[in-house]
């Protein structure tokens, strides 16, 4: 039964996934690097919230902003310290570096904090519900939708209205030519990683918000979600990532209500069947990048 509550839940999941996928694709578009340390940025965001919760009582919003800031800084630093030195080498070197960064960050969390789940502070609104058209809806879901819309609009403004944003899009089209026009490679890449970390940090708030806890391996699931969403939507464009995220979230929710109870535990398997079908029949994803439509002659 498709109720308002279900629709809001599905769209909220899709919104979160869209932000996740966007954070991955913004780096992929420029470097052609699938950053396997992307999930760890969420983990770092979650642990930042946990650590901040141990200290003096700050308003939650302040803690959230700081946690997102730590995710941005981590993303920026991984690029400076790990990816930049190997960038001139092969793509494989970068890919393996991203695995190394992922493993290092996970193990750091294991060693420094604990393998066990840690509780993160959450504001009361995360567990409250609001009445929308007579139905009770979790406020957390409404916040996720609202936040996504605001961030997507901000990104559109950044990418379409600022020179830096235009340079980022150009770098996804043709990085070499973008440099040839005098745009510094390091600037573009640093900004892409910062945006990626920002999106991961914001998603982390909602991700840990579901279970109110964080573990060292919490990054694995969102990494997979981001990857699958970009495969569905198309890796060649940012629009594709957003579409992929929403489609993934909504279809995944639909599978949840349509499947009979006995098959519910295979929900992910059904999702992957859909992904395989997309790879077979539309390997470029639902949204074709502008590059594919390029005219010759």
């Amino acid at each position: 039964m498709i109720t308002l509550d279900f629709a809001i839940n599905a769209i909220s999941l899709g919104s979160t996934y869209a932000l996740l996928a966007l954070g991955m694709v913004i780096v992929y578009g420029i470097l052609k690097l699938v950053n396997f340390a992307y999930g760890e940025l969420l983990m770092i965001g979650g642990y930042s919230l946990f650590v901040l919760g141990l200290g003096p009582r700050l308003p939650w919003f302040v803690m959230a902003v700081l946690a997102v800031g730590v995710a941005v800084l981590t993303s920026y630093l991984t690029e400076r310290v790990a990816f930049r030195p190997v960038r001139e080498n092969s793509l494989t070197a970068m890919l393996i570096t991203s695995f190394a960064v992922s493993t290092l960050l996970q193990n750091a969390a294991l060693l420094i904090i604990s393998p066990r789940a840690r509780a993160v502070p959450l504001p009361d609104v995360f567990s409250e519900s609001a009445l929308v058209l007579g139905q009770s809806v979790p406020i957390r879901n409404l916040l996720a939708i609202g936040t996504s819309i605001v961030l997507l609009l901000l990104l559109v403004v950044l990418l379409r209205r600022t020179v830096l944003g235009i340079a980022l899009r150009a770098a996804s089209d043709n990085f070499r030519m973008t440099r040839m026009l005098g745009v510094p490679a390091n600037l573009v890449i640093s900004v892409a990683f910062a945006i990626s970390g920002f999106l991961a940090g914001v998603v982390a708030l909602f991700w840990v918000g579901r279970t109110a806890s964080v573990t060292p391996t919490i990054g694995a699931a969102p990494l997979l979600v981001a990857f699958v969403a970009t495969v569905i939507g198309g890796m060649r464009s940012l629009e594709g990532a957003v579409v992929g995220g929403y489609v993934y979230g909504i279809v995944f929710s639909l599978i949840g209500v349509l499947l009979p109870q006995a098959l519910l535990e295979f929900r992910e398997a059904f999702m992957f069947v859909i992904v395989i079908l997309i790879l077979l029949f539309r390997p470029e994803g639902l949204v074709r990048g502008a590059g594919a439509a390029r005219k010759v002659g």
Partner: protein
Amino acid sequence: MSMLEVRDISVRYGAIAAIREVSLEVRQGELVALIGVNGAGKTTTLSTIAGALKPYQGSIFFDGAQVHGRHPEDITRRGIALVPEGRDIFPSLSVAENLRLGAFVRNNRAEFQRDIDEMVALFPILGERMRQAGGTLSGGEQQQLAIARALMSHPQLLMLDEPSLGLSPVLVDQIFALVGRLHARGVTILLVEQNVERTLDIVDRAYLLHTGSVEVEGTPEHIRSLVDVEGVYLGDRRSKA
């Protein structure tokens, strides 16, 4: 004094030598061409000057400063603009955005609109296509956009790599006329072309490259007197002897 001075540069792709000890110079206001058949090393030479490739020996000086080994973005800031072979316009960016990025090194808002107006005057079709994505333009339109984008940076030296490649005869005429016009306006140009006969009609000087080395250099008359130009075009380089 020459604006661009390339001394004995050699470049390899892996183990294969692409160019060997190529030397050339371009003086202020000159229109100079690199001619030769496919694979002679023309594009490699331009890419190396632009910083996309690193020479393993030799040196490149621009305005008296050493530029070899520098990043491409550095070299562009110093005033060299490359219109690459295949144009490399940004397909998902609008024509206006392509031009906006061309002016990236300028950072001068006041002059930006004036420059855009000038480009529209020079390339009227771009004015009609301003909001369209670059990828939807025809080949000739893309070539005009690529040249306009390079001019937006107010380069001291404009390098054009095979601007007539793949264009219809009418468009080829237009491109050659345009290169001549830009030269007449005082733009210093280093032109790479396979269309040897037509190139020699418009340039001040030329370098004939063959299998990675400069074979002949000098004025068009000098080159015509030494080499069977039509033969070069067809891949036969026998000298007139």
